[in-house]
């Protein structure tokens, strides 16, 4: 990335100091990496070992190559509803990303560019929703879900997740639009006879795409980790998402079948990692303005 080099502190350009301070940096970063990645590595290793040996003592950090097995993965894929959980979660994730991207970009555009009565009050109301944990509203939300027939229905999680993540997405997108999209572009579209919709489609969406990508990464992850609400309304097995399914599986297996559990968790991580890798180049630039302004 060119940006990183441009912003390099000056002392790094001082050639005499480079080698020592650089090697200390790499050393510290590698040491930190060890702590960060070690538990994940341990999970991977445990998922590749015979399930019975994952609960034996002493535990092993390493495993010889010839003892590695994909048995646990086979078990998870061949027994139970893993494909259903997986596709359910993907569906919920894509829908949550889509709905919240549309709604929050519309809200962000309106709040960033227009004046209308009650604007400040409305915006502060939306922002203060960020402060209240989605799970804290569980009782009235559950009543609503019952009324709208959303219990045991994937839309029950999709709609509420989208609503929970929208305030933060709106906040980041509004900051991004204000800082990074010049008003002159809007003006030019209006001069050409375009409407607010033209501006939204041809200026906001393309220009704000780094920020939309950044919030989408966060929103995509949400259905892969939310447990409280999903376990409340997704009652039957074939409708469950991965966090619920994994927790249920763990409890149903006497909390000891770690090999199976880690095969399941490992597989569940794949979509999020792919999604992140695809969009990661936008991540920092997309997050920057909203978070810098504070």
């Amino acid at each position, binding site marked *: 990335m060119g940006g990183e080099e441009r912003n390099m502190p000056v002392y790094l350009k001082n050639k005499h100091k480079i080698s020592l301070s650089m090697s200390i940096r790499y050393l510290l*970063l590698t040491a930190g990496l060890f702590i960060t990645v070690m538990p994940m590595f341990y999970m991977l290793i445990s998922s590749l070992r015979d399930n019975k040996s994952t609960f034996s*003592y002493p535990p092993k950090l390493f495993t010889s190559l010839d003892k590695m097995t994909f048995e646990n993965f086979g078990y998870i894929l061949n027994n139970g509803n893993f494909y259903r959980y997986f596709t359910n979660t993907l569906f919920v994730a894509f829908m949550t990303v889509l709905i919240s991207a549309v709604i929050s970009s519309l809200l962000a555009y309106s709040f960033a560019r227009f004046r209308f009565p009650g604007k400040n009050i409305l915006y502060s109301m939306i922002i203060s929703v960020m402060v209240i944990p989605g799970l804290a509203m569980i009782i009235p939300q559950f009543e*609503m879900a019952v009324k709208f027939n959303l219990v045991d229905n994937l839309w029950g999680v999709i709609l509420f997740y989208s609503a929970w993540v929208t305030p933060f997405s709106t906040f980041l997108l509004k900051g991004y639009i204000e800082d990074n999209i010049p008003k002159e572009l809007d003006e030019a579209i209006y001069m050409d006879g375009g409407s607010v919709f033209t501006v939204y489609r041809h200026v906001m969406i393309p220009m704000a795409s780094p920020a939309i990508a950044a919030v989408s990464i966060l929103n995509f992850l949400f259905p892969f980790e939310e447990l409280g609400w999903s376990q409340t309304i997704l009652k039957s097995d074939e409708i469950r998402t991965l966090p619920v399914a*994994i927790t249920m599986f763990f409890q149903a297996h006497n909390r000891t079948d770690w090999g199976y559990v880690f095969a399941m968790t490992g597989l569940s991580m794949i979509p999020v990692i792919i999604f992140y890798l695809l969009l990661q180049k936008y991540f920092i630039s997309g997050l920057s303005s909203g978070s810098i302004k504070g």
Partner: protein
Amino acid sequence: MISIVKKKSTRKTDWRVYILLIPGLLFVATFTFYPIVKMLVMSFFNWRIGYQQVSDFVGLANYKDVLSDQIARRALMNTVAYAVVTVPLQMIFGLFVAVLINGIKKFSISFRLAYYLPVITSWVVVALLFRYIFNNQGLLNYFLTDVLKVVNEPIGWLSTRWSAIFVAMLLGIWKGIGWNMVIFLAALQSVPKEYYEAASLDGLNNRQQFFYITLPSIRGTILFALVMLSIGAFNTYTPIAVLTGGNPAHQTEVVLTWMYFQTFNAMGKMGYSAALSIIIAAVIMLVTVLMFITLSRKKED
């Protein structure tokens, strides 16, 4: 010229903005504003659900119940302790990693991706992983008893209050470093390099540059991270639910796990749970507002 100004002002109150605005507002209002108001109402009633149930107005009785409840107070204490420890530590570590990554030339993207890995891993997954590692017969106890021989008996990490909260804190910090790293990296990259040039001409060393230039320049981001992480810390549910389930004997409950338990396991205490939720929300709002006031006051100094 006049016509342009006129055109501008008519567009500012363009009715079409409502078409952009109303779907989103309706959506957010239905799924968040309405439940919040409903919850506030419920917290003043002995709320019952079911066909033709009549709920009695009980005033502040639910709030009294919550505030006099030993477990609720303990849960709040645990949550506050979790927030006070995890928020500053993950910010410090995250900023440290961001400064290191910002100063290297090669592999900066690889490091960034690797440090971000725990963030994009689900809470359920990492909590299970920590449960496995901190198990009585787990990897950590094995190292402490049989390899390093610093303790004789395996430690029951997840079976006493503070040791379990400690594990939850470690998990929170470990998972949060990457998020802070990304946020601070974005902030560091927007600090104008001229500042550093001027500073090194003035003879400031690296540490002085960090304290006199970097920190003041990223103050907005620090406030942002502080607020977001505090909200997140009070929002903690999954790590505790998976690590301990609030056990033993509700010793390790945080506010949301206790609220959830009261709602679904101790049926008929809907009013209590609603009051608890309102108290949680009020506490978070108070903390957020206090942070804004103190930090913006410091800015003026």
